[in-house]
Structure formats: C-alpha cells, structure tokens
C-alpha cells in the first residue's frame, strides 16, 4: 500500500469513498508519522491518538452506512489557539497552564460535524504573536525544509516554518496531518504557508466565526486552513466557514461550493499588480517569482493591470498599533484569578504582576506594553485613532482598485525561510515579514498564499492573491491556475522520519 500520509485531502477522500482503506487505517498512518516525526519538528504540542481513533471508528461506521459527510474520516491538526472541549488548549502560552475549555470553537465544531478527525493540537507563536514560531512556550517548530548552503549542498540549518501558524504549516508539509486549522491576524496563515510550500487562505473577515478561538486582535483575527493543495483548501474552508450568532462580527452570507470554482479558470479575469508592493531592496528571486505568476495568469487568459494602493506603506506601522492595542485589552483576562497560571504575591497587584510576568513571554509582553501605551490618555488620538484612519484609507485604496481589477497578485513574503535566531533578536526585521500580508487584514479582505517556486536556497516561495470581500471563489480559481502552472512543492527529503 502507498504511504497514506502522502495523499492530498481530496485523494484521501476518494480513497475512503472507494474503500481503498479505512478511516482508521488512514488515522493510524498519521498517528504513526506523528509518533515518529514530531519530536524532530515539534509541530504538535499535544497529540490525541485515542480521540482520533474513536472519531475514525465512528467515521468508518458512517462510511459503511453510506452516510459520509464532506470531510468524513479525514485526519487534521488543530492549532492550539482553537478551544477544544475537554482537551488542553494553551495558545502556546504558560499563562493558560493546563487549561481545558468546557467548549469547542465554532470552526472546530464545524469541522467535526463535517466528519473530520482531530489528531492533536498544533504549535504556534504564543497567542499567535510572531512570524517564526519562536515565541511558543512549547519551543520552536522546525521546518521540514532544509536550505542549500553557498556551496549548493543541503545544510542542517534549522529553518523557521513561519508563524504564527508554524505548527500547522510544518505538520502539513511534513505529512503529519492532511490539513490543519490556522489563524491569521497579520499574515499568520499565508506567511507560514509560503515558507513551507503549502496553501493557506485567510478568508474575508467575518467568513469564519471567531467564537472559541483565543483572541489576539479581534478586528483582524480570522481562521482559515493550511493544506497541501488548492483543492484541499477549498474543501477545508467550505467546512470551516459559517455564520455564527455567537460572533456578531461573523457575516450571514451563504458559503459557496469552493471546489466547484476551481475549474473555472481565469479567462478574462482582471489581475491587479500594485506598484507599491515593489518595495526597495526586493530580491531578484522574489521579483522573478512575481513575474512568473503574471506570465502564468496571462497565459491562462487573464489580463494584467498595474494598480496603485497608495497607502500601502502605512499599513505595517498602523497594524503594529491596532493589533497590540487590541491585544493589550484582550489579554487582560489572563490575570490568574479564574483559570490558568497563578503566581501568588503579597497582595493583589503583586499577584497580578507575578502571574503575568511568569505567564507571558517576551514578545507578548512587548505587544501588551505597546498596546497599553498607544491607548493611553493623550496618545490615543496620535496613535490608535490615526491608525484607524489609515485603515479606512487602505480599505478605500482597495475599493478603488476593485473598479478596475478582480483580484490582486503580490508576493507573500519578502524573502524565503530564515534560520532560527536570524531575526528573533530584531523585532523590526521580524515585523517586516508581514509587509505584504498585513494590508489584507487591515482591509478585512480575503488573501491566499499559493506555492509558486523555490528560492536559490531551494526553499519554497509563495504568491499572494487578494480578493474582494467574500469573493474567495475568485481566489480559489486563480490559485488553481497558479498551482497547475507552478506544480507542487513537496519536501524532497523526509529527514524527520529517520529518527
């Protein structure tokens, strides 16, 4: 039998349907690969094999009865930001300790209701704050990818899988699960997808419910999947998205059949190329990747139009005001009073300080401090209010652009995967990882990263597609064209399985 873990989600679905293998066999294959491969990668922070096998058995029964649901029997990983009923959820922060929520996130529930199987909880940057998965309380995730040195030989440098959904991207790329949930506040789905050769979509703000997902920055957070292929992405998002009365920012709009859009092609589609994304010092290989993307779409019948998104340059600084501001307030609930970590002190203030100092890592504390500062009396107008105005202008830039184009094409990241420690000492360099992705969150638009090529170091690079609000369908059909043209980018050597 072939290695079941190498299948795409759609292939696994077909195999189950044809009864080539059972859901339990499929699940066991992933459990085995996690057991073997996870110690080298640290992608899963909690593996739930018993839970997964129980779900798999139930799925096999349903399949046998001809009652299979859309994701029946398909094993996935769940980012540790998603609350799981009775199963430890920490957001990869010490402050949540061994917190076991008595509830399931809406997105998670949607997936289980669609028949998906949970293999465990995936690593991420603490509270989703980071671009390299180096801020996790459980330690960093190692990318399954290895880069070539200047001599052209593969090195053993430990590369970052991107962040904050680094566990999700690494686990999918390393075949530890078929697909994974992820969240994206400033690029946390698309950037790790780009750095690992996987597909990541952050849908329109409001497409997925935020209920039961540990909040980072409420006005920017959005759930989405990381998958091996564009088709898998369509399958996953269809199941994850829903209108949820428990999240008043979720939108009551029908969720289309995204898979049906995949075959529509891009003939006549107007693709925008924003000139402001040609940032200073953009590397030649990123420029080439972008040009390749343009040629592929052109060849498939799309028309290419240069557009201007003049406020792009303000997006990153504005994002680093809005997101920390919201985070400083959202994380106030972790006070040691009701759940999670408590480090007692001499009095209440002391207990707060001890708890939060011990519970939050450095990056989280940095953002809480920034956020507290920008909301302070006397600074609110200068920072937060101004950042919100910038946000309005960014939205307006896109509204304007949609008059002439249907989708926007950009690189996902300014550079390929870097090694651990290369950027973690320099927060600004790390924040620049998000330069192409944050605008999308600031405008609430759907954005998707598709693998499109390899860097000179032999590591993956991604192209980003940005769409109109709730027009994820156009992203899927465009992404399919890119995937078809660029091919897929599996990790060449499964070194992590060799013990």
């Amino acid at each position, binding site marked *: 039998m072939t290695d079941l873990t190498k299948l795409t989600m759609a292939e696994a679905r077909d195999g189950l349907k044809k009864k080539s293998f059972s859901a339990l066999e499929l699940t066991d294959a992933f459990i085995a690969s996690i057991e073997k491969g996870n110690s080298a990668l640290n992608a899963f922070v909690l593996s739930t094999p018993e839970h997964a096998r129980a779900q798999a058995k139930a799925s096999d029964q349903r399949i046998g009865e001809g009652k299979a649901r859309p994701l029946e029997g398909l094993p996935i990983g769940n980012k540790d930001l998603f609350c799981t009923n009775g199963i430890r959820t920490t957001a990869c922060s010490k402050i949540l300790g061994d917190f076991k929520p008595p509830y399931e996130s809406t997105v998670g529930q949607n997936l289980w209701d669609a028949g998906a199987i949970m293999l465990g909880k995936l690593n991420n940057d603490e509270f989703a704050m980071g671009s390299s998965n180096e801020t996790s309380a459980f330690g960093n995730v190692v990318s399954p990818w290895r880069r070539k040195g200047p001599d052209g030989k593969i090195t053993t440098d430990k590369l970052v899988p991107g962040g904050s959904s680094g566990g999700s991207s690494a686990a999918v790329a390393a075949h530890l699960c078929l697909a994974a949930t992820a969240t994206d506040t400033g690029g946390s789905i698309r950037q790790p997808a780009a750095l690992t050769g996987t597909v990541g979509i952050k849908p329109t703000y409001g497409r997925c419910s935020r209920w039961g997902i540990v909040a980072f920055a409420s006005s920017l957070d959005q759930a989405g999947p990381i998958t091996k292929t564009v088709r898998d992405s369509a399958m996953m998002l269809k199941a994850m998205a829903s209108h949820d009365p428990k999240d008043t920012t979720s939108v009551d709009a029908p969720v289309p059949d995204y898979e049906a859009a995949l075959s529509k092609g891009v003939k006549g589609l107007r693709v925008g190329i924003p000139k402001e994304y040609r940032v200073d010092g953009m590397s030649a290989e990123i420029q080439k990747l972008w040009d390749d993307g343009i040629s592929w779409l052109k060849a498939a019948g799309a028309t290419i139009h240069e557009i201007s998104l003049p406020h792009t340059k303000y997006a990153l600084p504005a994002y680093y005001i809005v997101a920390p*501001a919201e985070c400083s*307030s959202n994380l106030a609930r972790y006070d040691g009073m009701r759940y999670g970590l408590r480090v007692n002190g001499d009095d209440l203030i002391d207990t707060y300080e001890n708890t939060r100092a011990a519970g939050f890592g450095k990056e989280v504390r940095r953002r809480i401090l920034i956020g507290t500062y920008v909301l302070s009396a006397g600074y609110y107008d200068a920072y937060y209010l101004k950042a919100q105005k910038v946000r309005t202008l960014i939205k307006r830039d896109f509204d304007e652009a949609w008059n002439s184009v249907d989708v926007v094409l950009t690189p996902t990241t300014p550079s390929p995967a870097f090694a651990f420690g290369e950027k973690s000492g320099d927060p600004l360099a790390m924040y620049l990882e998000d330069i192409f992705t944050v605008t999308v969150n600031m405008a609430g638009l759907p954005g998707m990263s598709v693998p499109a090529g390899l860097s000179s170091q032999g590591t993956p690079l991604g192209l980003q597609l940005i769409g109109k609000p709730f027009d994820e369908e156009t992203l899927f059909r465009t992404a399919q064209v890119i995937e078809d043209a660029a091919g897929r980018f599996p990790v060449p050597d499964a070194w992590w399985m060799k013990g």
Partner: protein
Amino acid sequence: MSSQKIAEKPKSKNLIAGATGDWEVVIGMEVHAQVASKSKLFSGSSTGFGAEPNSHVSLVDAAMPGMLPVINRECIAQAIRTGLGLKAEINLRSVFDRKNYFYPDLPQGYQISQYKQPIVGEGEIEIEVDGETLKIGVERLHLEQDAGKSLHDQHPDYSYVDLNRSGVALMEIVSRPDLRSSKQAQAYITKLRTILRYLGTSDGDMEKGNLRADVNVSVRKPGDKLGTRCEIKNVNSIRFIGQAIEYEARRQIDIIEDGGKINQETRLFDAAKGETRSMRSKEEAHDYRYFPDPDLLPLELTQNFVDELASGLPELPDEKRARFMKTFGLSGYDADVLVAERPSADYFETVAKGRDGKLAANWVINELFGRLNKEGKAIDESPVSAAQLGGIVDLISSNAISGKIAKDLFEIVWTEGGDPAEIVETRGMKQVTDTGAIEKAVDAIIAANPDKVEQAKAKPSMLGWFVGQVMKSTGGKANPAAVNEILKAKLGL
C-alpha cells in the same frame, strides 16, 4: 443685549450661609440603574437577584478564552424606552467601548460601556420642589456592564468573588450640573426612579443596589464660575444622597473659607458617620484606555424600531398628573401623591372611574395609604381591592352610609373582606334618612332631658350633645345632616 445671557439669579432659599457670605452648591448626578431584563447585556445568563454565588455565570461572563459578547436586544429596547421617557434624543448609531482596568470582579479586564457615542443623548426631567417646577437637563444615557461583587469578609486571607452581577446591564444616566440643593437632588432621583418604574425599564430598587448614584458636588459664590467638584461614589439611598450633599457642601465651604483649595477627587459617603471621605485623588485616577470594542459592531438602529417602542410607551407621571388634575379635579398635591407610583395611580383610577374623583382620592390617600403605611404594606398587597374601595365610595355618595360608618365599613372589609354593599345590608349599617324615624328619636331625647333643653336655649353649642344622643340611640345610622336640621327646628335654635 440678550436677556438669556444673564445667569439666573440664585434662589436665596437654596443658598448656604458661610462666614464670608452665602454660597451656592452645584450638583450633577450620574445614576446607575439596572436594566429590567431577564438576561444580561451580552450573555444569556439570568439577572435574578439573591441566587447562590456564581450560579448565574456563563462562559462569556467569566471571560473564558475565545468568548464573545452578543448584544441583548431587550436591553437596547429598554434603554431606548428610557430615553424616550426622558424626552431625549435617541442616537440611531452608537458604539460600545472598552473601559480597561484590572480588578478580580471584572473578569474581562475591561468593562464594555459606551463612551463617545452613547445610545441616548440630551433629555430632561421635570421636578417640583417647594412649589417650584424645574427642568433638569439630562446629558446622556449609555449602556454598560455591571461588574461582579468582591466579598472581603469571608476568609482571613482571601477575598471571594461572586460573578452573578457580572455583565448585568446598567443604564448610566448623567444629569447636567443643574441641581442647586440637596432637596433638588433628592427630587431629581425620586422623579427619575418614578419614570423608570412607570416605563418598566428598571425596578429602581436602591436596597438591592439596582439604582445608585455618583453625586458631583461643588460650591461657588453666587454668580461665580463653577468651583472644583468632588465626586461622591455609589450613594445608595435617597436619604444618604441628601446627607452626603449637605456634608460635602459644608466641607468644601469650610475649606475655601479657611483659605484652602478643593482638590478634585473621588469620595465615599460613610453612612454610619454621615460624612464623606477621600477615596482617590485626580492624580490616582485610572487611565481607562477607552477604545471601541472590536468584538461588537457599532449599534445601528432604525427610526422604525424607535417609533415602535415610542408607540408602546405607557403614560408617564407628568402626563398622568396633568390628566388627574383635569379629569378628576384633584389638587396638584393629591395628584403628585397618586402618580408617584404607577400601581397607586392605577388603583386610584380604578376607584375613581365613574365616581367622584375628589372623594375617591381622599379615600385612597387618607384611608388606604394611611392604613397601608401603618402596616408596612405595598399597594399590591392591599387587602382592600380597588373594586371594594369603589363600593365603599359608592355607598357614601348615595348617602347609604355616613363617612363615619364608612370608616367602620373600611375596617370590616380590610380585616374580613366581602362586598361592601352586602355588609352594609346584612349588618344593618345603612344610614337612616327617614325623617320620621329621626324625629321620633329626637322627640324622645327632648322629652327625657328637659334640663338640657333649657341649657341649650342659653348655649346653642349644646346642640352637639343632642346630636350625640340621637346618633347613639339610632346606632350611628341616622343621617347627621338630617339630625342637625330636625334638632335645630325642635329646639328652636
């Protein structure tokens, strides 16, 4: 020159005498009223009072990770009704903000409130003090969450927290600094409470903490600009509001007259000592870092929704008062007493319907309210129903019984119940208006008391003695007017 620019001359009766002359006290109030609703502002938990600690707490109220607020439509409707009752502007777009501070009874680490864009804008409340009608400006009304309750007396080393109140909806109603005496302040909150109760938007129960006031007090020499204010937090009875203002005004006057300055600060009222004391200074004030709550979209209302609520509003106390005076010929005082509580007004109206309004008011206010007060009963606990009291009034109006008998009858109905007309009939309480029978009784008394007849001729006030005798012999049932008339004629007075 426009006369409107000249500040209204302070009423001398409101001034407070100091060593350096008279002072004027300026008061503004922020009243927190718990919204009457079954569930909390942003969660489905019950708002029931008196439950076991932490039994009305949802995942949202406890601020579990990933929980989100969902606005309770009924709380919005209640706030709008209140706004309409205060003749205030309803803002069709309002925004919920987060007010950030740490405290164990505030699980989220922020209170969801409305800061820059409240649901209700400017309105007014009319009060009557010492026969003078005043319009007190209402600056705004906004919705916010209540915090939980910290219990510091349950354990030697720890405080306990009860989150039952956490997330309950409050309306904060902010007045303009238009009040000029403790009496006015008391009248303001009394009237506000009456309006809230009429609307059914808050039970206004101060004992349960469902209505409490932050009172801002400053003093100035008449005509001067506003002085520095102190805010007295969380005063929870109308009497204490009066005491707190009196104390605080005097304290401020004494400081200024001694050459000192008032520091802007938050103070507490100590009811046991009858004084206010400093809680925190302006410098120690929290920086609440208000910003719009990103979990909640701005609240957008349609004019249609507001209009529908407006059309469903009950008659309010001012309108009812005017109508009672017009329809039933009541005095302003009687009307005030009757409309103070909606159940009292409803009771009265049932009694007065189709009857003599003044007589009905007299019986409701003097006999019924008197008796209820004496027994510490509320109007809805009255053993005498409005229909029964109406029956009594009917018997008086038809001269079937005298006022004196009516009081006996009221007593019987109060203690035993029953239909008043039937009681009068079966117990022979009917007034004797048959002049023949009265004459017979009068003749008998005159015949038996020749000496008194002589005395009466010299001293006509002796008539009272004869009236008493006749009433006695008729068992109190003789019509007193008829007795008087016949006696006067027979005695030649």
